[in-house]
């Protein structure tokens, strides 16, 4: 039941980090096990258990979950709040990320992509992550929030510290800095609203016609800032590396430019194989779950990249099949907290 496993310990040069998890599966460790590393936490390895973990929000809370634990940690709205309170901000933000809303953004996103590419096209090459994959999602955030392009370096610097620093003091300061920037931005939107998401959030009213608490508005901004940056950068890196090294895959996409359904099927497969998020939950009460004694406040990791390659669910799961017809991958999660930005992330158009 206890396995010494540190999921941050990815050997240098390992090209597919999913291997650290699949190594465990091959070794035959129990499908639910405990590791004392990173503050101690459980790991679920079976697709079916991971789905149940996502759906059972009464037992597995999304509140205060980072591993290793960070205290205090801002409550992201609505990601860090369980139903029914979760629904308040989910309902407020969801319309901004529906498939139709994303279709309306397509032109802006394409323009952004073309601008970035034009920046290095003449050089004949680029550092894909630094020159494109890190810039694109941050620039998209600036567009959605109606902020000027000149602020790109500032926001990239903030995001880099958030995702890369391992120094707890630096991280605490960084969170304070991000909140200050968000506070200043939302105040500016109150004075001078635009046609952007930040303006829509500050203008929103609850059912009684009142404003939402300022802290909740900041927490929404924080979620939107951090949720769509590193995940997008990393996923892009895996997807483009695969495309760059696999001529048949490039031909597959080129041949389906006029067939959106087939194109989307291929994208879903790249999403399945390139899952980068390992999601955390917190146990709400002492209980015996599937024969295992859980304690209140135990942390649980639901690794999407393991679920997505569970042979009980996916045929030939380690192979990339761009025609995979049934593909219920968990890259965007499942259940009430399912990724709100998924339609934007998978470039639906």
């Amino acid at each position: 039941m206890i396995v010494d496993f540190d999921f941050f310990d990815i050997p240098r040069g390992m090209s597919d980090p999913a291997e650290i998890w699949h190594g465990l599966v091959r070794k035959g460790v129990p499908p639910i096990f405990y590791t004392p590393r990173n503050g101690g936490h459980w790991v679920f390895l079976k697709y079916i258990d991971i789905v149940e973990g996502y759906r059972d929000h009464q037992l597995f809370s999304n509140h205060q979950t980072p591993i290793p634990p960070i205290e205090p940690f801002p409550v992201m709205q609505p990601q860090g709040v369980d139903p029914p309170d979760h629904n308040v901000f989910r309902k407020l933000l969801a319309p901004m990320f529906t498939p139709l809303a994303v279709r309306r953004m397509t032109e802006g996103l394409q323009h952004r992509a073309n601008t970035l590419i034009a920046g290095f096209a003449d050089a004949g090459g680029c550092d894909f992550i630094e020159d494109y994959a890190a810039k694109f999602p941050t620039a998209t955030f600036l567009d959605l929030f109606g902020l000027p392009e000149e602020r790109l370096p500032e926001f990239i610097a903030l995001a880099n510290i958030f995702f890369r620093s391992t120094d707890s003091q630096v991280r605490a300061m960084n969170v304070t800095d991000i909140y200050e920037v968000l506070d200043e931005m939302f105040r500016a939107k109150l004075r001078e609203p635009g046609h952007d998401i930040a303006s829509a959030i500050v203008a929103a009213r609850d059912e009684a016609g009142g404003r939402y608490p300022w802290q909740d508005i900041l927490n929404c901004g924080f979620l939107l800032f951090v949720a769509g940056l590193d995940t997008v950068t990393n996923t892009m890196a895996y997807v483009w590396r695969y495309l760059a090294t696999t001529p048949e895959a490039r031909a597959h996409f080129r041949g389906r430019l006029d067939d959106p359904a087939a194109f989307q099927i291929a994208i879903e497969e790249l999403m399945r194989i390139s899952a980068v998020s390992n999601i955390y939950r917190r146990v709400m009460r002492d209980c015996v779950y599937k024969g295992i004694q859980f304690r209140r406040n135990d942390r649980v990791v639901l690794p999407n990249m393991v679920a997505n390659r569970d042979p009980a669910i996916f045929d030939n799961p380690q192979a990339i099949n761009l025609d995979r017809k049934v593909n219920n991958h968990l890259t965007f999660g499942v259940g009430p907290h399912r990724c709100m930005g998924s339609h934007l992330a998978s470039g639906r158009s």
Partner: protein
Amino acid sequence: MYVVANMNICQGHARCEDICPEIFSTDDNEGKVVIAQSEFPDDLLEKVRLAVRNCPEGALRIVKGGKA
């Protein structure tokens, strides 16, 4: 044949819309599924079936005969 959705568990993945836009779309408010016509023609059976099997929440169901 009819296709029905459990709106309580639909989370707006929109996989059904990708696979069978003839029948499924998503509303622009919450992003949840909208079924254009619950009773669908036989020639769409394969596509609807694929959409049902691709719903990560298991929110869609095909019903024979009358509406469920």
